[in-house]
């Protein structure tokens, strides 16, 4: 084609990025890679091929790690950890700073290698992935620097096993490695088998940065390596980003092991367009939402929800925009959409669309796909309903599905009609509308008039089945630290047995369950006598069964007003509970002493009143934050209530323990189902009378009595419970964690460790954090 011809056609023409350097790097390694363990490369063992999805060619042979090698990596990490954690924050900061600098110095090599390995357009790896990687290491160099001063009460977890996906290979590595090592952990990281190469280049960078050996270990391979890491007993923490399906398996596999766990899983994120939006910008936003990285993005705005009145025009404009997208060689600088990561993924997307399109109308970018490589055209499916499979299932490809809504309330309803809750996008030029809708969306991240914005300072992570834990920001450090201090094992307390000769001198009292603001007889009709150590009958407590648990959860779910009540009102209610408890202090103290046979009742009641006051105080003081993200605007981190929390109360302090769990939960706007102390339930059943007189709305607090082992399975498995706190004297931690996998609810278990409920550590931020989810709302502005 001559210049003269081009003057007529005005085509783009090719703009290839050279891969010479990256191929040279692969050649230098003989295109065969071992594992990076303890600062050294192992000899390549059994290998598998790593292919370029852009053309199907083999790039390198990468080692499939075995259990022994995983073990060697864990041992290396374990050896290195104490010394690494003992370095001052500043010394660790210098290492992270060096890593950030080296990522920048090798930025182009990383970018080209990432594109070769993953198939994403070079523009994205060059302008988005790699700069965010450097930013993440810089940011966390700063976190290491500030750790001693700002986090004096927290310490590293130990060895972190990290399993990352193939969609953002190097970026996900950075998100995992940077906070972990900043806080003094050491890591064993497994890249996805499709995309190991930039992790291996990163290993080289670690050596170049002078990182002590064993701090970062990289083991490659398929899911078996991930299983070995997950199952390894000498690992303290598992961090996983990937599919919800695998996340569930990991949740079950780590249940009861005491391993800390964070999961960043799938999504089907809504992309809501109101009729007063800047339509062209909203359409351009979709390019960044669903055609970014070929749609292989966990938080991709894959579900278009557009206001009915503008839908036709919106779709027409969207199709016109799609027609301009360029699909092809990922190394071409003028390509918008590259290759899917592997044939398996291409087949999966193809299959999902073919099977699920139903009555939908399909539009695809008119384009000629390259003969080799794994390409799928940008696709829009209109005319679907929420009930269609493709509106519910994550496709993880360049496929946008669309439906319409009539009112803001309906938009929220449709948006939240999903098992997932990772991200949500909304477009409106009306600040009132936007800021009203954003908090109502069930998502860890909300983008207003922007989409797929990321920064190390802003927390990222989901709710519901999109996982738990946050990456980025101060909140992200919680995933890699724990409160300092030693734990001691819990001593089980059993109920006092019935005496040979019952001593009954008081009027018969029947304690009931407390559900939806009403006293309720246990559904099963069974009760248990509660005896004092001296053999006095103190009363009967109901034995709650599955149906009682169900009813309690339903009542809690229905009490939606509580989350919307002002923090001031919630504080007033908590003060009032405290006031009413104080008024009956003697009676409660006596009851506790009778039940436990001890004399600490008065102190426990006094401490309970104090604790209620503490959380009344906290109700309007657990502030969020405005994150300094690189944007004209802000990213607001707000503490949202988790939802419905089922809490198993401890036995050591039957009243104070219950109050210590209930108060932070309801202070933050949650509704609770409390399983009272199993041996000493009567403090709880007396307590509902206090609740009754304290303006607690029905359903906000529900109290069950009975056997924790029975209730744990039901409540942890209940798909409408958002979190379970197991602070029980019964050994239910493993059961709760295992059963929680159903809807991936948040769990907080004691792993049979004791806690001093009178201690200051049993109050405050640690509890409030469990009672909240950080929601990050991005709000760009500018007229």
């Amino acid at each position: 084609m001559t210049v003269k011809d081009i003057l007529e056609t005005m085509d783009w023409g090719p703009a290839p990025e050279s891969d010479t350097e990256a191929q040279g790097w692969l050649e230098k390694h003989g295109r065969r890679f071992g594992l990076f363990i303890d600062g050294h490369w192992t000899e390549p063992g059994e290998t598998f091929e790593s292919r370029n999805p852009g053309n199907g060619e083999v790039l390198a042979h990468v080692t499939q790690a075995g259990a022994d090698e995983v073990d060697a990596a864990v041992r290396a990490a374990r050896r290195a950890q104490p010394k690494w954690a003992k370095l001052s924050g500043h010394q660790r900061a210098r290492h992270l700073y060096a890593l950030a600098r080296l990522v920048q110095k090798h930025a182009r090599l990383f970018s080209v290698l990432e594109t070769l390995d993953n198939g994403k357009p070079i523009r994205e790896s060059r302008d988005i992935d790699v700069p965010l990687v450097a930013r993440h290491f810089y940011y966390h160099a700063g976190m290491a620097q500030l750790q001693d001063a700002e986090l004096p009460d927290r310490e590293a977890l130990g060895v972190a096993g990290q399993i990352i996906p193939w969609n953002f290979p190097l970026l996900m590595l950075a998100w995992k490695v940077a906070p972990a090592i900043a806080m003094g952990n050491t890591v064993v990281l497994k890249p996805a088998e499709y995309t190991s190469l930039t992790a291996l280049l990163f290993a080289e960078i670690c050596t170049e940065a002078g990182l002590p050996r064993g701090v970062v270990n990289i083991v490659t391979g398929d899911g078996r390596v991930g299983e070995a890491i997950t199952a390894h007993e000498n690992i303290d923490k598992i961090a996983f980003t990937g599919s919800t399906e695998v996340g569930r398996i990991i949740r079950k596999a780590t249940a009861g092991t005491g391993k800390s766990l964070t999961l960043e899983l799938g999504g089907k994120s809504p992309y809501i367009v109101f009729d007063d939006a800047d339509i062209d910008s909203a359409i351009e936003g979709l390019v960044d939402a669903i055609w970014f990285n070929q749609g292989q993005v966990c938080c991709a705005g894959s579900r278009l929800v557009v206001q009915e009145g503008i839908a036709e025009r919106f779709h027409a404009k969207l199709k016109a925009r799609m027609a301009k997208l360029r699909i092809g060689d990922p190394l071409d600088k003028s390509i918008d959409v590259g290759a899917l990561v592997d044939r398996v993924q291409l087949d999966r997307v193809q299959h999902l669309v073919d099977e699920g399109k139903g009555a939908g109308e399909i539009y695809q970018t008119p384009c000629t796909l390259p003969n080799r490589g794994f390409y799928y055209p940008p696709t829009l499916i209109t005319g679907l309903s929420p009930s269609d499979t493709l509106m519910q299932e994550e496709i993880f490809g360049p496929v946008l599905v669309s439906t319409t809504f009539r009112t803001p309330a309906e938009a929220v309803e449709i948006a939240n009609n999903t098992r997932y809750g990772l991200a949500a996008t909304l477009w409106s030029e009306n600040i009132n509308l936007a800021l009203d809708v954003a908090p109502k969306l069930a998502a860890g991240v909300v983008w207003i008039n922007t989409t797929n914005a990321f920064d190390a300072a802003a927390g990222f992570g989901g709710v519901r089945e999109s996982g738990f834990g946050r990456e980025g920001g101060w909140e992200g450090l919680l995933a890699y630290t724990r409160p300092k201090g030693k734990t001691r094992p819990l001593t089980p307390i059993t109920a006092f047995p019935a005496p040979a000769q019952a001593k009954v001198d008081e009027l018969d009292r029947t304690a009931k369950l407390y559900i939806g603001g009403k006293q309720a007889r246990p559904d099963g009709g069974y009760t248990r006598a509660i005896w004092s150590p001296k053999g006095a009958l103190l009363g009967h407590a109901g034995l709650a069964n599955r149906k009682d648990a169900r009813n309690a959860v339903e009542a809690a779910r229905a009490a939606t007003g509580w989350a919307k009540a002002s923090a001031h009102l919630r504080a007033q209610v908590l003060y009032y509970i405290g006031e009413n408890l104080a008024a009956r202090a003697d009676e409660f103290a006596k009851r506790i002493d009778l039940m436990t046979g001890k004399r600490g009742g008065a102190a426990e009641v006094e401490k309970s009143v104090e604790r209620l006051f503490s959380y009344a105080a906290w109700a309007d003081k657990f502030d969020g934050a405005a994150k300094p993200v690189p944007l004209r605007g802000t990213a607001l981190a707000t503490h949202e209530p988790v939802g419905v929390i089922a809490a198993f109360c401890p036995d050591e302090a039957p009243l104070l323990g219950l109050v210590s769990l209930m108060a932070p939960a309801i202070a933050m706007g949650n509704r609770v189902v409390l399983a009272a102390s199993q041996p000493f339930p009567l403090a709880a059943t007396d307590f509902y009378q206090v609740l009754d007189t304290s303006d607690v709305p029905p359903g906000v607090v529900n109290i069950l009595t009975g056997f924790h082992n029975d209730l744990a399975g039901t409540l942890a498995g209940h798909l409408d419970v958002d979190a379970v706190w197991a602070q029980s004297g019964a050994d239910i931690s493993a059961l709760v964690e295992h059963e929680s996998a159903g809807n991936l609810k948040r769990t907080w278990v004691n792993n049979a460790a004791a806690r001093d409920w009178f201690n200051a550590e049993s109050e405050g931020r640690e509890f409030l954090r469990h009672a909240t989810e950080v929601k990050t709302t991005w709000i760009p502005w500018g007229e």
Partner: protein
Amino acid sequence: MQRESDASVTDRSAGTQLPQTIEARNPGMALDMDWVMSAQANRSAIERRAGSIAARRSLKKDHQAAWLLKAITMIDLTTLAGDDTPGRVRRLCAKARQPVRQDLLDALGVGPINTGAVCVYHEMVPTAVEALAGSGIPVAAVSTGFPAGLSPYRLRILEIGESVKAGAREIDIVISRRHVLTGDWQALYDEVREMRRECGDAHIKTILATGELGSLRNVARASLVCMMAGADFIKTSTGKESVNATLPVSLVMMRAIRDYFERTGIRIGYKPAGGISKAKDALVYLSLLKEELGDDWLTPHLFRFGASSLLGDIERQLEHHVTGQYSALWRHAMG
């Protein structure tokens, strides 16, 4: 939707394969306030798109050379200075006829090219018309009390007629910014409507002076009103404001043009002016144009650069393309 001339719209859509030279002129339409007020422009999102276009599209080698040649054909070679003289204007016109050294054109294998127009003040119109005689290059006159547009309304209208009479085939009018800033869209519409009428067969480019309109939303709405009033081109700036053509403003105006086309079938031209002085910038603007409006707009009939020093930089880049060596400004004839 009301249109003044439905016939011309039908003609337009039926004649998609016709050469650009007979592109139907915009007949304008009644002021549609619902449409105007529904226009939105989200600055942050617009800046994100404008900021990524240079990275999303890259032109290399022959493609770059061809696009730069195309850019030259779209330049309104401009001199708008108080010290303009006939000699200065004649020199500029000569450059418009032969904007690139012949040996470079030969090496690139393309025939003669010329710039899109020459743009001058009214007093220089006769000189320019004479200097460009036979070249087919139109003379554009800035008008209506350029640049502030605050001289007596009657005189502003008269000025148009004078320039047309003197041979200007394109009239770059300035709008009354105060009509935008006070939201008096009817006044803006009426003003441009009358100016359009006064232009007769000469094409009218409406200069919005976007740097003085306060917001991108105002730019979008003013663009729509000017098109409804019959503008052939909408243009960003006089070059005299403190902020002239920018990519975000261009994106807003191009999208307004697209919206107008989608609803009326009429293609309106776009002219960014002021501050575009590098070949690389020109390529970014053309990339945005191709992406947002499409290939139909990649013609001097629908796109112009208002620029004075851009040409020099393009010439240097073209010589680099031909020789492989970086060039110097003095190796190319001045305008």
